[in-house]
Protein backbone atom coordinates (compact mmCIF):
# COMPACT_ATOMS: atom_id res chain seq x y z
CA UNK A 1 0.00 0.00 0.00
CA UNK A 2 1.31 3.49 -0.88
CA UNK A 3 0.91 6.55 1.27
CA UNK A 4 -2.60 6.80 2.70
CA UNK A 5 -4.41 9.89 1.42
CA UNK A 6 -5.53 11.82 4.47
CA UNK A 7 -7.41 15.08 4.16
CA UNK A 8 -7.91 17.44 7.11
CA UNK A 9 -10.58 20.15 7.03
CA UNK A 10 -9.72 23.17 9.17
CA UNK A 11 -6.38 24.66 10.21
CA UNK A 12 -7.30 25.71 13.74
CA UNK A 13 -5.86 24.07 16.86
CA UNK A 14 -7.43 20.67 16.12
CA UNK A 15 -6.49 20.55 12.44
CA UNK A 16 -2.90 21.70 12.92
CA UNK A 17 -2.26 19.20 15.73
CA UNK A 18 -3.81 16.41 13.63
CA UNK A 19 -1.57 17.33 10.71
CA UNK A 20 1.47 17.39 12.98
CA UNK A 21 0.77 13.89 14.32
CA UNK A 22 0.51 12.55 10.76
CA UNK A 23 3.66 14.30 9.57
CA UNK A 24 5.59 12.87 12.53
CA UNK A 25 4.82 9.42 11.12
CA UNK A 26 5.88 10.28 7.60
CA UNK A 27 2.46 10.98 6.14
CA UNK A 28 1.90 14.05 3.96
CA UNK A 29 -1.68 15.11 4.64
CA UNK A 30 -3.77 17.59 2.68
CA UNK A 31 -4.93 20.49 4.88
CA UNK A 32 -7.70 22.80 3.69
CA UNK A 33 -9.02 25.94 5.35
CA UNK A 34 -11.35 28.66 4.20
CA UNK A 35 -9.18 31.41 5.69
CA UNK A 36 -6.12 33.00 4.18
CA UNK A 37 -3.98 31.90 7.12
CA UNK A 38 -3.78 29.13 9.72
CA UNK A 39 -4.90 29.47 13.35
CA UNK A 40 -8.65 29.02 13.06
CA UNK A 41 -10.91 31.58 14.71
CA UNK A 42 -9.46 31.35 18.20
CA UNK A 43 -5.83 31.82 17.15
CA UNK A 44 -6.68 33.83 14.06
CA UNK A 45 -3.66 35.70 12.76
CA UNK A 46 -3.62 39.37 12.00
CA UNK A 47 -2.77 40.29 8.40
CA UNK A 48 0.80 40.93 7.29
CA UNK A 49 1.84 44.48 8.12
CA UNK A 50 0.10 44.54 11.53
CA UNK A 51 2.51 44.88 14.43
CA UNK A 52 0.77 44.02 17.70
CA UNK A 53 2.74 41.40 19.67
CA UNK A 54 1.29 38.01 20.68
CA UNK A 55 0.75 39.14 24.29
CA UNK A 56 -1.47 41.97 23.12
CA UNK A 57 -3.41 39.83 20.66
CA UNK A 58 -3.99 36.68 22.65
CA UNK A 59 -3.51 37.77 26.28
CA UNK A 60 -3.06 34.81 28.61
CA UNK A 61 -3.15 32.44 25.62
CA UNK A 62 -0.25 34.13 23.81
CA UNK A 63 2.17 31.23 24.28
CA UNK A 64 -0.31 28.68 22.98
CA UNK A 65 -1.16 30.80 19.95
CA UNK A 66 2.49 31.33 19.12
CA UNK A 67 3.30 27.64 19.60
CA UNK A 68 0.49 26.63 17.25
CA UNK A 69 1.56 29.12 14.58
CA UNK A 70 5.19 27.98 14.84
CA UNK A 71 4.12 24.34 14.53
CA UNK A 72 2.20 25.18 11.40
CA UNK A 73 5.18 27.00 9.89
CA UNK A 74 7.37 23.94 10.51
CA UNK A 75 4.74 21.71 8.91
CA UNK A 76 4.06 23.90 5.95
CA UNK A 77 6.51 22.26 3.51
CA UNK A 78 5.54 18.78 4.65
CA UNK A 79 1.81 19.05 3.97
CA UNK A 80 -0.31 20.00 0.97
CA UNK A 81 -1.71 23.30 2.22
CA UNK A 82 -4.81 24.75 0.57
CA UNK A 83 -5.66 28.18 2.01
CA UNK A 84 -8.85 30.05 1.04
CA UNK A 85 -10.40 26.72 0.18
CA UNK A 86 -13.99 25.93 1.03
CA UNK A 87 -14.85 22.26 1.68
CA UNK A 88 -18.45 22.25 0.54
CA UNK A 89 -19.54 18.68 -0.02
CA UNK A 90 -18.45 15.12 0.63
CA UNK A 91 -19.43 11.82 -0.96
CA UNK A 92 -17.87 8.36 -0.80
CA UNK A 93 -14.23 9.17 -0.12
CA UNK A 94 -14.19 12.37 -2.14
CA UNK A 95 -14.15 15.85 -0.66
CA UNK A 96 -15.42 18.63 -2.90
CA UNK A 97 -13.69 21.95 -2.49
CA UNK A 98 -13.66 25.36 -4.14
CA UNK A 99 -10.42 27.29 -4.26
CA UNK A 100 -10.03 30.67 -6.00
CA UNK A 101 -13.24 30.12 -7.94
CA UNK A 102 -12.15 26.66 -9.14
CA UNK A 103 -13.90 23.45 -8.15
CA UNK A 104 -11.71 20.50 -7.20
CA UNK A 105 -12.21 17.02 -5.86
CA UNK A 106 -9.86 15.64 -3.24
CA UNK A 107 -10.01 11.84 -2.94
CA UNK A 108 -9.21 10.47 0.51
CA UNK A 109 -8.71 7.26 2.44
CA UNK A 110 -9.44 9.11 5.67
CA UNK A 111 -10.98 12.48 6.40
CA UNK A 112 -10.37 14.38 9.64
CA UNK A 113 -12.95 17.13 10.04
CA UNK A 114 -11.96 19.96 12.39
CA UNK A 115 -14.59 22.45 11.30
CA UNK A 116 -14.81 24.54 14.47
CA UNK A 117 -17.77 26.44 15.80
CA UNK A 118 -19.76 29.61 15.29
CA UNK A 119 -21.64 31.76 17.78
CA UNK A 120 -24.87 30.42 19.20
CA UNK A 121 -27.59 33.05 19.00
CA UNK A 122 -30.91 33.68 20.67
CA UNK A 123 -32.92 36.33 18.84
CA UNK A 124 -34.00 39.52 20.59
CA UNK A 125 -36.21 42.19 19.03
CA UNK A 126 -33.90 44.46 17.02
CA UNK A 127 -31.05 41.99 16.48
CA UNK A 128 -31.43 42.48 12.74
CA UNK A 129 -30.44 46.18 13.05
CA UNK A 130 -27.11 47.29 11.59
CA UNK A 131 -24.59 47.46 14.42
CA UNK A 132 -25.65 44.22 16.11
CA UNK A 133 -22.87 41.65 15.73
CA UNK A 134 -22.13 38.18 16.99
CA UNK A 135 -19.71 37.93 19.94
CA UNK A 136 -17.17 36.25 17.67
CA UNK A 137 -17.47 39.11 15.19
CA UNK A 138 -16.68 41.63 17.92
CA UNK A 139 -13.56 39.67 18.79
CA UNK A 140 -12.45 39.22 15.17
CA UNK A 141 -12.75 42.93 14.38
CA UNK A 142 -10.47 43.70 17.29
CA UNK A 143 -8.04 40.80 16.97
CA UNK A 144 -7.64 40.71 13.25
CA UNK A 145 -8.36 44.33 12.25
CA UNK A 146 -7.68 46.42 15.40
CA UNK A 147 -11.19 47.90 15.23
CA UNK A 148 -14.06 48.22 17.67
CA UNK A 149 -17.51 47.40 16.25
CA UNK A 150 -18.76 50.82 17.42
CA UNK A 151 -18.14 53.96 19.48
CA UNK A 152 -20.02 52.58 22.49
CA UNK A 153 -20.46 48.84 22.75
CA UNK A 154 -22.75 46.70 24.92
CA UNK A 155 -21.95 42.99 25.32
CA UNK A 156 -24.95 40.76 25.93
CA UNK A 157 -25.51 37.02 26.15
CA UNK A 158 -23.86 34.38 28.25
CA UNK A 159 -20.76 32.23 28.28
CA UNK A 160 -17.04 32.69 28.76
CA UNK A 161 -16.65 34.69 25.53
CA UNK A 162 -18.93 37.42 26.91
CA UNK A 163 -16.37 38.34 29.56
CA UNK A 164 -13.31 37.53 27.48
CA UNK A 165 -14.23 39.75 24.54
CA UNK A 166 -15.52 42.59 26.74
CA UNK A 167 -12.26 42.61 28.70
CA UNK A 168 -10.24 42.54 25.47
CA UNK A 169 -12.17 45.64 24.35
CA UNK A 170 -11.47 47.39 27.63
CA UNK A 171 -7.78 46.48 27.48
CA UNK A 172 -7.56 47.81 23.92
CA UNK A 173 -9.08 51.13 24.99
CA UNK A 174 -12.52 50.71 23.39
CA UNK A 175 -15.63 52.11 25.07
CA UNK A 176 -17.61 49.31 26.78
CA UNK A 177 -20.97 50.53 28.10
CA UNK A 178 -22.13 47.35 29.83
CA UNK A 179 -21.77 43.57 30.06
CA UNK A 180 -25.18 41.93 30.42
CA UNK A 181 -25.35 38.23 31.27
CA UNK A 182 -28.60 36.26 31.10
CA UNK A 183 -27.21 33.70 33.52
CA UNK A 184 -27.63 34.34 37.25
CA UNK A 185 -24.48 34.48 39.37
CA UNK A 186 -25.86 31.75 41.65
CA UNK A 187 -25.54 29.29 38.74
CA UNK A 188 -21.85 30.04 38.52
CA UNK A 189 -21.36 29.28 42.18
CA UNK A 190 -23.10 25.94 41.76
CA UNK A 191 -20.90 25.13 38.76
CA UNK A 192 -17.67 25.72 40.69
CA UNK A 193 -16.92 22.06 41.51
CA UNK A 194 -16.96 21.16 37.80
CA UNK A 195 -15.21 24.34 36.68
CA UNK A 196 -12.47 23.52 39.18
CA UNK A 197 -11.48 20.66 36.85
CA UNK A 198 -9.34 23.29 35.14
CA UNK A 199 -8.25 25.62 37.95
CA UNK A 200 -6.03 27.84 35.79
CA UNK A 201 -8.85 28.49 33.32
CA UNK A 202 -11.28 29.18 36.14
CA UNK A 203 -8.85 31.61 37.74
CA UNK A 204 -8.37 33.32 34.41
CA UNK A 205 -12.13 33.79 34.08
CA UNK A 206 -12.39 35.29 37.54
CA UNK A 207 -9.55 37.66 36.70
CA UNK A 208 -11.38 38.82 33.58
CA UNK A 209 -14.50 39.66 35.56
CA UNK A 210 -12.37 41.46 38.16
CA UNK A 211 -10.63 43.48 35.43
CA UNK A 212 -14.01 44.60 34.07
CA UNK A 213 -15.16 45.67 37.53
CA UNK A 214 -11.89 47.50 38.09
CA UNK A 215 -12.38 49.38 34.82
CA UNK A 216 -15.78 50.52 36.06
CA UNK A 217 -17.79 48.61 33.44
CA UNK A 218 -21.44 48.06 34.37
CA UNK A 219 -21.91 44.30 34.92
CA UNK A 220 -25.34 42.74 35.30
CA UNK A 221 -26.21 39.07 35.71
CA UNK A 222 -29.54 37.28 35.53
CA UNK A 223 -30.93 39.82 33.07
CA UNK A 224 -33.71 39.33 30.52
CA UNK A 225 -33.15 40.96 27.14
CA UNK A 226 -36.09 43.17 26.11
CA UNK A 227 -35.00 44.80 22.86
CA UNK A 228 -32.21 46.37 20.87
CA UNK A 229 -33.50 49.82 20.01
CA UNK A 230 -32.81 51.71 16.80
CA UNK A 231 -34.17 52.35 13.34
CA UNK A 232 -33.90 50.57 10.00
CA UNK A 233 -31.77 53.37 8.51
CA UNK A 234 -29.70 54.31 11.52
CA UNK A 235 -29.13 50.90 13.06
CA UNK A 236 -28.57 50.31 16.78
CA UNK A 237 -29.12 53.21 19.23
CA UNK A 238 -29.44 51.32 22.53
CA UNK A 239 -30.46 48.20 24.38
CA UNK A 240 -33.17 47.56 26.91
CA UNK A 241 -33.06 44.75 29.49
CA UNK A 242 -34.87 43.73 32.67
CA UNK A 243 -32.89 42.95 35.80
CA UNK A 244 -33.63 40.06 38.16
CA UNK A 245 -36.27 42.12 39.99
CA UNK A 246 -38.08 43.04 36.80
CA UNK A 247 -36.84 46.63 36.60
CA UNK A 248 -36.03 47.92 33.13
CA UNK A 249 -32.67 49.42 32.21
CA UNK A 250 -31.77 51.25 29.01
CA UNK A 251 -28.17 51.52 27.81
CA UNK A 252 -27.36 53.88 24.96
CA UNK A 253 -24.92 52.42 22.45
CA UNK A 254 -24.30 52.17 18.73
CA UNK A 255 -23.16 48.54 18.74
CA UNK A 256 -24.21 45.32 20.46
CA UNK A 257 -22.14 42.13 20.61
CA UNK A 258 -24.51 39.20 21.13
CA UNK A 259 -23.83 35.54 21.80
CA UNK A 260 -24.66 32.53 23.95
CA UNK A 261 -21.51 30.47 23.79
CA UNK A 262 -21.02 28.40 20.64
CA UNK A 263 -22.51 25.83 18.31
CA UNK A 264 -20.61 23.18 16.40
CA UNK A 265 -20.19 23.60 12.65
CA UNK A 266 -21.12 20.01 11.86
CA UNK A 267 -22.38 20.27 8.26
CA UNK A 268 -19.58 18.23 6.65
CA UNK A 269 -20.10 15.43 9.18
CA UNK A 270 -23.84 15.56 8.48
CA UNK A 271 -23.43 15.42 4.70
CA UNK A 272 -21.01 12.50 5.19
CA UNK A 273 -23.95 10.74 6.93
CA UNK A 274 -22.34 10.60 10.36
CA UNK A 275 -24.81 9.73 13.11
CA UNK A 276 -25.85 12.53 15.46
CA UNK A 277 -27.12 12.43 19.03
CA UNK A 278 -28.93 14.99 21.16
CA UNK A 279 -26.67 16.44 23.84
CA UNK A 280 -29.18 17.22 26.59
CA UNK A 281 -26.83 19.48 28.56
CA UNK A 282 -26.27 21.92 25.71
CA UNK A 283 -29.59 21.20 23.96
CA UNK A 284 -27.84 20.73 20.65
CA UNK A 285 -27.40 17.87 18.22
CA UNK A 286 -23.81 16.74 17.87
CA UNK A 287 -22.13 14.09 15.74
CA UNK A 288 -21.57 10.86 17.63
CA UNK A 289 -17.91 9.96 18.17
CA UNK A 290 -16.04 7.36 20.16
CA UNK A 291 -13.51 8.39 22.78
CA UNK A 292 -10.83 8.99 20.13
CA UNK A 293 -12.88 10.88 17.55
CA UNK A 294 -14.08 8.10 15.21
CA UNK A 295 -17.47 8.99 13.73
CA UNK A 296 -20.07 6.36 12.88
CA UNK A 297 -18.78 6.39 9.29
CA UNK A 298 -15.64 4.39 8.61
CA UNK A 299 -12.72 6.62 7.64
CA UNK A 300 -14.25 9.83 8.96
CA UNK A 301 -12.83 11.37 12.14
CA UNK A 302 -14.12 14.42 13.97
CA UNK A 303 -12.20 16.67 16.34
CA UNK A 304 -12.24 20.08 17.97
CA UNK A 305 -15.18 22.39 18.59
CA UNK A 306 -16.90 21.07 15.45
CA UNK A 307 -17.89 17.97 17.39
CA UNK A 308 -17.57 18.84 21.10
CA UNK A 309 -17.20 22.34 22.54
CA UNK A 310 -14.09 21.79 24.65
CA UNK A 311 -12.29 24.99 23.64
CA UNK A 312 -8.86 25.50 22.09
CA UNK A 313 -6.90 23.27 24.50
CA UNK A 314 -9.42 20.49 24.04
CA UNK A 315 -9.22 20.97 20.29
CA UNK A 316 -5.44 20.53 20.28
CA UNK A 317 -5.77 17.29 22.23
CA UNK A 318 -8.70 15.91 20.26
CA UNK A 319 -7.08 16.78 16.92
CA UNK A 320 -3.98 14.83 17.79
CA UNK A 321 -5.99 11.95 19.22
CA UNK A 322 -8.16 11.71 16.08
CA UNK A 323 -5.02 11.54 13.94
CA UNK A 324 -3.61 8.77 16.15
CA UNK A 325 -6.92 6.87 15.86
CA UNK A 326 -6.84 7.32 12.10
CA UNK A 327 -3.31 5.90 11.88
CA UNK A 328 -4.19 3.02 14.21
CA UNK A 329 -7.05 2.13 11.83
CA UNK A 330 -4.53 2.17 8.97
CA UNK A 331 -2.51 -0.40 10.93
CA UNK A 332 0.18 2.02 11.99
CA UNK A 333 1.08 1.48 15.61
CA UNK A 334 0.63 4.38 18.04
CA UNK A 335 2.01 5.11 21.47
CA UNK A 336 -0.54 3.69 23.89
CA UNK A 337 0.62 5.83 26.85
CA UNK A 338 0.13 8.93 24.69
CA UNK A 339 -3.36 7.84 23.68
CA UNK A 340 -4.22 7.24 27.33
CA UNK A 341 -2.84 10.64 28.29
CA UNK A 342 -4.86 12.45 25.62
CA UNK A 343 -8.02 10.59 26.62
CA UNK A 344 -7.50 11.60 30.25
CA UNK A 345 -6.97 15.21 29.20
CA UNK A 346 -10.21 15.19 27.23
CA UNK A 347 -12.13 13.76 30.21
CA UNK A 348 -10.97 16.76 32.24
CA UNK A 349 -12.09 19.05 29.40
CA UNK A 350 -15.46 17.32 29.34
CA UNK A 351 -15.96 17.90 33.05
CA UNK A 352 -15.15 21.57 32.56
CA UNK A 353 -17.51 21.74 29.57
CA UNK A 354 -20.30 20.44 31.79
CA UNK A 355 -19.42 23.16 34.29
CA UNK A 356 -19.70 25.84 31.63
CA UNK A 357 -23.11 24.54 30.60
CA UNK A 358 -24.23 24.80 34.20
CA UNK A 359 -22.70 28.26 34.73
CA UNK A 360 -23.83 29.82 31.44
CA UNK A 361 -26.89 27.89 30.23
CA UNK A 362 -28.45 28.39 26.80
CA UNK A 363 -31.53 30.47 27.76
CA UNK A 364 -33.97 28.29 25.84
CA UNK A 365 -37.01 29.55 27.77
CA UNK A 366 -36.41 32.96 26.19
CA UNK A 367 -37.48 31.54 22.80
CA UNK A 368 -40.97 30.88 24.12
CA UNK A 369 -41.27 34.45 25.40
CA UNK A 370 -40.17 36.22 22.21
CA UNK A 371 -42.88 38.62 20.97
CA UNK A 372 -44.53 37.45 17.73
CA UNK A 373 -43.00 40.29 15.71
CA UNK A 374 -39.41 39.37 16.65
CA UNK A 375 -37.30 38.49 13.64
CA UNK A 376 -36.01 34.94 14.10
CA UNK A 377 -34.40 34.44 10.68
CA UNK A 378 -32.26 37.52 10.00
CA UNK A 379 -31.56 36.42 6.43
CA UNK A 380 -35.15 36.39 5.21
CA UNK A 381 -36.90 38.26 8.02
CA UNK A 382 -39.12 35.41 9.20
CA UNK A 383 -40.74 36.29 12.53
CA UNK A 384 -41.45 34.22 15.63
CA UNK A 385 -45.18 34.71 14.93
CA UNK A 386 -44.90 33.30 11.39
CA UNK A 387 -43.02 30.30 12.74
CA UNK A 388 -45.61 29.71 15.46
CA UNK A 389 -48.41 29.92 12.90
CA UNK A 390 -46.61 27.30 10.82
CA UNK A 391 -46.79 25.01 13.85
CA UNK A 392 -50.32 25.85 15.02
CA UNK A 393 -52.08 26.06 11.65
CA UNK A 394 -50.00 23.85 9.38
CA UNK A 395 -48.98 21.28 11.99
CA UNK A 396 -45.27 21.54 11.28
CA UNK A 397 -43.68 20.26 14.48
CA UNK A 398 -40.53 18.99 12.77
CA UNK A 399 -37.92 21.66 11.99
CA UNK A 400 -37.27 20.73 8.35
CA UNK A 401 -41.02 20.75 7.67
CA UNK A 402 -41.31 24.17 9.35
CA UNK A 403 -38.35 25.36 7.28
CA UNK A 404 -40.00 24.25 4.05
CA UNK A 405 -43.24 26.02 4.94
CA UNK A 406 -42.05 29.35 6.33
CA UNK A 407 -38.41 29.51 5.12
CA UNK A 408 -36.91 29.81 8.59
CA UNK A 409 -33.34 28.51 8.25
CA UNK A 410 -33.46 28.58 4.46
CA UNK A 411 -31.65 31.87 3.92
CA UNK A 412 -28.08 32.70 3.14
CA UNK A 413 -26.66 31.59 6.53
CA UNK A 414 -28.43 28.22 6.07
CA UNK A 415 -29.84 28.23 9.58
CA UNK A 416 -26.55 28.73 11.40
CA UNK A 417 -27.82 31.69 13.39
CA UNK A 418 -31.54 31.00 13.75
CA UNK A 419 -31.67 27.19 13.74
CA UNK A 420 -31.34 26.51 17.45
CA UNK A 421 -33.78 29.23 18.50
CA UNK A 422 -36.23 28.20 15.78
CA UNK A 423 -36.21 24.63 17.12
CA UNK A 424 -36.95 25.93 20.63
CA UNK A 425 -39.84 28.07 19.33
CA UNK A 426 -41.31 25.12 17.44
CA UNK A 427 -40.91 22.85 20.48
CA UNK A 428 -42.71 25.31 22.71
CA UNK A 429 -45.49 25.98 20.21
CA UNK A 430 -46.01 22.25 19.58
CA UNK A 431 -45.61 21.43 23.30
CA UNK A 432 -43.01 18.75 22.63
CA UNK A 433 -39.41 18.29 23.82
CA UNK A 434 -36.92 20.09 21.57
CA UNK A 435 -35.16 16.85 20.62
CA UNK A 436 -38.40 15.71 18.94
CA UNK A 437 -38.29 18.78 16.71
CA UNK A 438 -35.09 17.43 15.18
CA UNK A 439 -32.33 19.41 13.55
CA UNK A 440 -31.97 21.28 10.28
CA UNK A 441 -30.52 18.87 7.72
CA UNK A 442 -27.27 20.08 6.19
CA UNK A 443 -26.98 20.31 2.45
CA UNK A 444 -24.10 20.91 0.11
CA UNK A 445 -22.87 23.47 -0.69
CA UNK A 446 -22.44 24.25 3.00
CA UNK A 447 -21.85 27.87 1.99
CA UNK A 448 -23.03 29.66 -1.14
CA UNK A 449 -20.80 30.23 -4.18
CA UNK A 450 -21.66 30.97 -7.82
CA UNK A 451 -23.08 27.96 -9.65
CA UNK A 452 -20.76 28.76 -12.57
CA UNK A 453 -17.88 27.55 -10.38
CA UNK A 454 -18.96 23.93 -10.57
CA UNK A 455 -20.63 24.21 -13.97
CA UNK A 456 -17.33 25.34 -15.51
CA UNK A 457 -14.89 23.68 -13.14
CA UNK A 458 -15.71 20.06 -13.89
CA UNK A 459 -16.41 18.92 -10.34
CA UNK A 460 -17.11 15.37 -11.51
Amino acid at each position, binding site marked *: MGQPRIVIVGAGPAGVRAAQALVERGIRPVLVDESRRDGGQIYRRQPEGFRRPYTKLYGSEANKAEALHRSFELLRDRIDWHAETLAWNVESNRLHVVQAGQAQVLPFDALIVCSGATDRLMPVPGWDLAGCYSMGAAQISLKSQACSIGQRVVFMGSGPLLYLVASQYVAAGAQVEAVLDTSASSLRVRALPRLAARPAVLLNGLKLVASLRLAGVRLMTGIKPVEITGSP*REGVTGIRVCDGRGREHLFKCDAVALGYHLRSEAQIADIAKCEFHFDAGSRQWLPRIDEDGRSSVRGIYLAGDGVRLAGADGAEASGRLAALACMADLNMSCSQPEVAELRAKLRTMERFRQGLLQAFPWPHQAAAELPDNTVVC*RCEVVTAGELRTTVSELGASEINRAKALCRVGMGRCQGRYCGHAAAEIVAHAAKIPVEQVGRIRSQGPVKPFPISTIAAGGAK
Partner: protein
Amino acid sequence: MNTPVRRFVRISEIERREIRVWIDGRLTKALEGDTLLVALLSNTGHLRHSEFSDGVRSGFCLMGACQDCWVRDEQGQRLRACSTPAHEGMRILTSAQEAEWANLA
Protein backbone atom coordinates in the same frame (compact mmCIF):
# COMPACT_ATOMS: atom_id res chain seq x y z
CA MET B 1 -32.39 60.02 10.88
CA ASN B 2 -29.48 59.10 8.64
CA THR B 3 -27.09 56.20 8.78
CA PRO B 4 -24.07 57.01 10.97
CA VAL B 5 -20.98 58.40 9.21
CA ARG B 6 -18.98 55.38 10.19
CA ARG B 7 -19.65 52.27 12.22
CA PHE B 8 -16.25 50.82 13.09
CA VAL B 9 -13.67 52.65 15.19
CA ARG B 10 -9.97 52.07 14.61
CA ILE B 11 -8.23 51.37 17.91
CA SER B 12 -4.62 50.86 16.81
CA GLU B 13 -2.51 49.75 13.81
CA ILE B 14 -3.20 53.04 12.06
CA GLU B 15 0.30 53.51 10.64
CA ARG B 16 -0.41 51.40 7.58
CA ARG B 17 -0.31 52.71 4.02
CA GLU B 18 -3.48 54.48 2.85
CA ILE B 19 -5.47 53.08 -0.04
CA ARG B 20 -8.40 54.61 -1.95
CA VAL B 21 -11.78 52.90 -2.11
CA TRP B 22 -14.86 54.31 -3.81
CA ILE B 23 -18.18 53.68 -2.07
CA ASP B 24 -21.21 54.34 -4.25
CA GLY B 25 -19.01 56.69 -6.31
CA ARG B 26 -17.65 58.56 -3.29
CA LEU B 27 -13.87 58.57 -2.72
CA THR B 28 -12.88 57.28 0.74
CA LYS B 29 -9.64 56.31 2.46
CA ALA B 30 -8.87 52.90 3.93
CA LEU B 31 -5.68 51.17 5.05
CA GLU B 32 -3.66 48.39 3.48
CA GLY B 33 -4.47 45.16 5.32
CA ASP B 34 -8.11 46.12 5.89
CA THR B 35 -10.77 43.64 4.99
CA LEU B 36 -13.27 45.14 2.58
CA LEU B 37 -15.80 45.14 5.43
CA VAL B 38 -13.54 47.27 7.64
CA ALA B 39 -12.60 49.55 4.73
CA LEU B 40 -16.31 50.22 4.14
CA LEU B 41 -17.56 50.41 7.74
CA SER B 42 -14.83 52.84 8.77
CA ASN B 43 -16.31 55.18 6.16
CA THR B 44 -20.04 54.47 6.22
CA GLY B 45 -22.71 52.98 8.47
CA HIS B 46 -23.88 50.06 6.34
CA LEU B 47 -22.87 47.56 3.68
CA ARG B 48 -26.16 46.85 1.94
CA HIS B 49 -29.92 47.10 2.10
CA SER B 50 -31.80 44.02 3.20
CA GLU B 51 -33.70 42.55 0.26
CA PHE B 52 -36.56 41.94 2.69
CA SER B 53 -37.17 45.65 3.35
CA ASP B 54 -36.15 45.77 6.99
CA GLY B 55 -33.40 48.35 6.60
CA VAL B 56 -29.65 48.53 6.21
CA ARG B 57 -27.25 45.75 7.13
CA SER B 58 -23.66 45.88 8.25
CA GLY B 59 -22.58 42.24 8.47
CA PHE B 60 -22.98 40.00 11.49
CA CYS B 61 -20.45 37.19 12.03
CA LEU B 62 -17.26 38.49 10.34
CA MET B 63 -16.11 34.89 9.83
CA GLY B 64 -17.68 34.01 6.52
CA ALA B 65 -20.62 32.09 8.00
CA CYS B 66 -23.64 34.42 7.88
CA GLN B 67 -23.25 35.94 4.37
CA ASP B 68 -24.79 39.21 5.65
CA CYS B 69 -21.93 41.31 4.26
CA TRP B 70 -22.27 40.73 0.52
CA VAL B 71 -21.61 43.81 -1.58
CA ARG B 72 -21.01 44.28 -5.30
CA ASP B 73 -18.29 46.01 -7.23
CA GLU B 74 -19.18 48.23 -10.18
CA GLN B 75 -18.81 45.25 -12.54
CA GLY B 76 -21.57 43.48 -10.63
CA GLN B 77 -19.23 40.92 -9.07
CA ARG B 78 -20.49 39.78 -5.66
CA LEU B 79 -17.96 40.02 -2.83
CA ARG B 80 -18.18 38.75 0.75
CA ALA B 81 -16.80 41.84 2.45
CA CYS B 82 -15.55 40.16 5.66
CA SER B 83 -13.26 37.74 3.85
CA THR B 84 -12.19 39.91 0.92
CA PRO B 85 -9.04 42.01 1.35
CA ALA B 86 -9.50 45.67 0.41
CA HIS B 87 -7.14 46.98 -2.22
CA GLU B 88 -6.32 50.25 -3.90
CA GLY B 89 -8.91 51.43 -6.39
CA MET B 90 -11.81 49.16 -5.42
CA ARG B 91 -15.18 50.58 -6.43
CA ILE B 92 -18.03 49.19 -4.32
CA LEU B 93 -21.79 49.58 -4.42
CA THR B 94 -23.83 49.22 -1.24
CA SER B 95 -27.20 49.28 -2.99
CA ALA B 96 -27.21 46.41 -5.44
CA GLN B 97 -30.03 46.06 -7.93
CA GLU B 98 -31.24 42.72 -6.59
CA ALA B 99 -32.15 44.48 -3.34
CA GLU B 100 -34.12 47.11 -5.19
CA TRP B 101 -36.23 44.82 -7.33
CA ALA B 102 -37.07 42.65 -4.35
CA ASN B 103 -38.20 45.70 -2.43
CA LEU B 104 -40.51 46.76 -5.25
CA ALA B 105 -42.56 43.58 -4.86
